[in-house]
């Protein structure tokens, strides 16, 4: 150490020492962080779709509708926790793609959608923002429940002159109980892909669900026969009831909307009223999320009873399962057609 150093050098030397030490620590920290990034990236790249280490926890299922979530619970049992982005009382065409949904999706093991472009206005953006590769289209955790549905009303030409038409067919297929089994199988297969160790359990629960659905369907068919639904002419607000009508023999003769998504004009309403009288329409069926005032006026003008119907599980507090939905629908239709009948 040089004897020429003075006492005033000591603080400066100390400060330089602290600075150099801080710089060394910063460099080490930065290198460590960089190496950690490399290791993390390599681990993720090793298998970006690998089930996370906490696979023993219930599988997180995010469905677009309450109907799909209810079926997922039926098939998955205690191995799943299922939530729906669209509540049962909401119009599934118009759901806001809220950022909070992305948080749910970021943790999902399985995503289930109705498909057929029902959710095209909101679901793709949510999936794109969820940062979850496991549930992107084509990934094992993505389920399009419509994949094996026999879809009605697939248009041969698609043009906006037809309104907001669904180019891949009518997506409201969950309203035919026969499609409940098809949806359940799609969910079963999706669950088995993401949790193969439980595939047998899911298969058994799916079979149980289908058996219960078959038994309930027989009950509903008897109820529909008692009500004389076969051949009953109805008008609906939107093209939501095509599958339900096919299942229970109703004949949909026209719609309050002149075309999908196009609000009715006074001229259309007048023509509709005339047609309802001429055709002997027996029932006006309106989804519960539409404004009922115009249908109420049509009902008064025509004398045709109006029934406001839930379209999904969760639309009302006591519609908890998929079967509850059809029990409630037939109950409401029965009361509308036979208001004086004893319960």
């Amino acid at each position: 150490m040089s004897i020429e150093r003075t006492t005033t050098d000591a603080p400066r030397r100390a400060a330089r020492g602290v600075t150099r030490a801080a710089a060394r620590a910063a460099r080490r920290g930065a290198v460590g962080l960089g190496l950690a990034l490399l290791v993390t990236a390599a681990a993720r790249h090793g298998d970006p779709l690998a089930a996370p280490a906490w696979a023993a926890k219930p599988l997180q299922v995010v469905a677009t509708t309450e109907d799909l979530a209810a079926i997922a619970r039926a098939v998955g049992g205690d191995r799943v926790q299922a939530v729906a982005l669209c509540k049962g009382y909401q119009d599934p065409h118009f759901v806001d793609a809220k950022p909070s949904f992305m948080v749910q999706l970021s943790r999902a093991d399985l995503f289930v959608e109705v498909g057929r472009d029902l959710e095209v206005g909101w679901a793709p953006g949510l999936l794109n923002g969820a940062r979850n590769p496991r549930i992107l289209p084509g990934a094992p955790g993505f389920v399009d429940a419509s994949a094996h549905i026999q879809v009605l009303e697939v248009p041969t030409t698609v043009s906006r002159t037809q309104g907001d038409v669904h180019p891949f067919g009518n997506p409201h297929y969950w309203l035919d109980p026969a499609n409940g089994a098809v949806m359940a199988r799609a969910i079963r297969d999706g669950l088995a892909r993401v949790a193969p160790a439980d595939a047998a359990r899911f298969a058994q629960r799916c079979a149980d669900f289908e058996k219960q659905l078959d038994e309930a369907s027989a009950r509903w068919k008897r109820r529909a026969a008692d009500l004389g639904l076969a051949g009953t002419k109805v008008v609906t607000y939107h093209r939501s009831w095509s599958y339900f009508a096919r299942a229970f023999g109703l004949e949909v003769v026209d719609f309050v909307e002149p075309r999908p998504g196009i609000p009715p004009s006074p001229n259309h309403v007048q023509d509709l009223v005339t047609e309802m009288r001429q055709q002997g329409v027996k029932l006006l069926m309106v989804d519960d999320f539409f404004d009922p005032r115009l249908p109420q006026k049509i009902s008064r003008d025509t004398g045709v009873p109006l029934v406001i119907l839930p379209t999904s599980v969760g639309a009302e507090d006591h519609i908890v399962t998929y079967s509850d939905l059809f029990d409630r629908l037939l109950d409401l239709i029965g009361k509308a057609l036979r208001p004086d009948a004893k319960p």
Partner: protein
Amino acid sequence: MLRIVFVLACCVALGAPRAARSQAPDAAAAPGGGSGSAAVANPATSVIGWFQAAAGGDHSAQGDAFALREAEIGFQATVDPFTRADFFLSAGPEGLDVEEGYLTWLALPGRGQAKIGRFRADLGKFNRTHPPETPFADRPLAAQAFLGEEGLSTTGLSVSALLPNPLALYWDATANVGVVPDSSASPLFEPETRSDLLAVGRTSVFVPLGGSTDLDLGVSYANAASRPALRSEGNRAQLAAGDATLRWKNPRRAIYRSLLVQGEYLVEQGSASSAPRRGGGFLYVIYQLARQWKVGARYDRTDRPGGPGGERGVLGLLQYQPSEFSTVSVQARRVRGPGGSDRDAAFLKWTFNIGPHGAHPY
């Protein structure tokens, strides 16, 4: 050495991941069969047309009585299982421009995303909205004063991440790094050398307040080389912004009633210690009173970067939607300049779209 490690790590993290395992048939297989292959292979193509008529003594928003202000042409598609591409071309009186064109990696480690290309900067919330898709015939005075007539855009890299939090709220952080827009596009910035870059950071949190109401809060900051006229206030120009958005909608009657309240405040200051601080902001309300009808109002207030005085403005609008794909509104605006003089303008704005256009950020 430090830079090398960081660059290498970032390159590996952002690089192409291994191909995803797919143990099942493609669940998103083209439905409908037949011509589905073309529909799947081609990007979603859309055009949004923006026609506008203007009247009144204020020509600042539009000089001509009638104008096709913009045709926004969109091409959007997935590139591969890991990325998607979005291109928005803006065709207008000044010609054809790439408004945005970027590749996005959808899922990166740490719940991250990244994009490269040209994009509107994440400075505030309003700046991300393309002009035809805002409710207004013009842009708010503060947005013009600090971000430019077309808003702030850059070409570069953006990274974002969802931040974990005990309340499981959507809380994100985004950083943009890109070229500095030149003074023809930006009132604040001007690059001197190629290494002059624009840096933008934003963090936002989305707070659901029950089933009908949501609140979105954001804070942003931008820093870049200042334009020559502002160099006396420092070599760097800084811009900070706070934004808040409140939405209400009855989920049982979603298509009939809604309320949107959005406000932003921007503050600009040069890097010199003696640099003055200038600010401006806007607040607007859009209320949907029936399925096809909305009314709205906006208040503007702003200083002018590099100049004295400021401006105040009010705008009112009445909007009608014949369908989901077409919107027409009549709007009236008054702007009061620094000298107290008023400039009035009235507009009819009509936007219409063809083709599938992806939903905009909420």
